[in-house]
């Protein structure tokens, strides 16, 4: 049900679905109750209003239940984040260099491109660095982003399990042509990638 171009994307969609489902139930519950009360206790019906100052049981219930709900949301969110931050030792490393207003990807053998080519089913570590102002590497289809700063080394993990071409955007405002900092992520089969990687 929750699948994407990576296992992580599916997991993020699950967390989203979990939080949104609970939220929709709460929102509809609150709204329906409110509208029901407006009709039920409408002044036109001539009820005598009743002063109820509170109810300790209710107050406890609507603190404890939401606490449990939000802690569960925290837990799922944290687990998803942890898997995103985990760096295995044998990850394939690519350096990402951002500047106003373009991306550059540098591979171990000195190859430099402006499109990000990666092999499928490989854990890839992107080392992020900016040459000027703040940028943010954002790959919406994979549900991931990380700020790219000058002088501070950030990284991002990516493990694609679907072939194809995906958008990469800059998500941190970086000046005049911020909106044009789009490029592509291309996920290739391992043999095709090797072929591309080994041609000068």
């Amino acid at each position, binding site marked *: 049900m929750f699948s994407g171009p990576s296992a992580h994307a599916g*997991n993020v969609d699950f967390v989203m679905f979990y*939080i949104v489902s609970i*939220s929709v139930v709460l929102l509809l519950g609150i709204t329906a109750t409110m509208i029901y009360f407006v009709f039920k206790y409408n002044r036109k019906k001539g009820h005598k209003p009743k002063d*109820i100052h509170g109810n300790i049981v209710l107050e406890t219930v609507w603190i404890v239940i939401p606490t449990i709900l939000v802690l569960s*949301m925290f837990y799922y*969110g944290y687990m998803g984040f942890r898997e*995103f931050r985990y760096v295995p030792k044998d990850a394939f490393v690519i350096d990402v260099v951002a500047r106003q207003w373009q991306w550059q990807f540098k591979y171990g053998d000195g190859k430099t491109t402006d499109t990000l080519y990666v092999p499928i089913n490989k854990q890839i570590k992107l080392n992020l660095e900016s040459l000027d*102002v703040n940028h943010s590497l954002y790959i919406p289809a994979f549900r991931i982003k990380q700020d790219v700063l000058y002088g501070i080394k950030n990284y991002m993990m990516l493990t694609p399990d679907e072939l194809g071409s995906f958008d990469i955007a800059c998500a941190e405002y970086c000046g005049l042509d911020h909106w044009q900092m789009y490029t592509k992520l291309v996920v290739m089969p391992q043999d095709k990638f090797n072929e591309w990687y080994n041609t000068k």
Partner: protein
Amino acid sequence: MSNGTIAIAEKSFYEVSTNKHSGILSWLLTTDHKRIGIMYLVTIAFFFLVGATIGLFMRLELLTPGRTIMGAQTYNTLFTLHGVIMIFLFIIPGLPAIFGNFFLPIQIGARDVAFPRLNLLSYYIYVIGAILVLVSLFIPGGPIDTGWTFYIPYSIRTGTNVSMAIFAAFVLGFSSILTGINFVTTVHRLRAPGMTWFKMPLFVWATYATAWIQIIATPVIGITILLVIIERVFGVGIFDPALGGDPILYQHMFWIYSHPAVYIMILPAMGVVSEIITTFSRRTIFGYVPIAMSSLAIAFVGYLVWAHHMFVSGMSDTATWIFSLLTFIVALPSGVKIFNWVATMYKGSIDPQVPFLWVMNFIFLFSIGGLSGLVLGSLATDVHVTDTYFVVAHFHYVMFGGTGTIFFGAMHYWFPKMFGRMYNKKFATISVITFFIGFNMLYFPKFIMGYMGMPRRYYDYLPKFAPLQEVSTIGSWILVGTIFFITGYLLYALRNGPKASGNPWGGVTLEWHIPSPPPTENFEEIPTITHEPYDFSQLKEMEYDK
């Protein structure tokens, strides 16, 4: 009682000057909290309309892909100005400066705030700050284009008038601090006899909690701004990594103020909601103490969640999960308030008049805003949707759907009290409905676009976003049209509306015990408080419109 006090009571504060001047100077040099409140209203409403108009132009540019009416630099300037004006000139000062000034002293049975002259000074500091913002638009260098967050290093590198614009925010901060000090002192020192802490109306509680945040948090932004100016002017390396500074430190310092500032914006609105719900349900508030305490809890925990704006900035993973956890905790007191408000309607006698309809609007829109905050508090999802339209939608639902909606709610609730006239209720009811439609058309598609991966602060967009962008822009026409329509019929009612009585809604807090508009020093005699704030059995002895 002497004849003199009766004579004062007969004349409203519009007719009696509190200084030796008459005409315009009797306003510009006034120390009357009500006149200062009205001056704030005029000034702040003006900037709100400017900010809304800028928003309208931004949406117009986004109506079609590619260039529609302006270039990228203009667009970048407009979204910065929209943010700066709406945040610093409208929503932070908005409710406390207008309605806090006008009603906080009356609701606690005082003749004025504790420091009336300081109050006038706060107003002029606000005006100076506002003028500085305007000046920064027209001097060489060009209007600021950094976004309202002024993130470093871009704000150090850009050639636009950053120093002037952020100095304006620095000046505005002092206005906020002084107002905060004034309100805290007023609440501590000037409560009428019998007005114990737990007999204060909840609007007073909320404004009081807000005032503390204003006092404690605002200096942080002041210091941060000074450091940025020093860095820009003298090239001292504080935040800019090229000079050996730390750009993440800037983000921390900016949000240590700007996140609590979110609660400066929303808390007074929550106070107004408690007032309106009780008056139109004609019964006591459900859970007075939990509501009052949740204001304080929000004010306190609100300090400890700032770094949730920075989950992808590269700060440590430990800090990241701690701030995520604290962010979920701060959601709870807001939930407590919502539940108590809805419970207050239970077994009431509900008359859904215009202000009540605004509150219903608020509860729905603010709930969406708050619940969407859970998606942003959760780490896995925040990484995906932060810095996208999802965030834009979230904070417009919270700030505009929350505070903005209640700005209109408070306006419609207290208008007859402030001006002694009633507006056209049919127009007002229509406006609530068109506001609701326009608002959701404008902002709801942004949740979807955000999840689809539309980054914020983009001059242009990929073709797949075109249909939703179009819906959003059409929503902006309905929304801004409604705002101007409301402005129109309220201005019309000022002169031509039917005269309002002292208590058109059947409210029982102190402002409804005095004439509309109130006399200069509010009360002939300082009242002695014996009732709880929302004890509607008092209505038997009061005059009100049945």
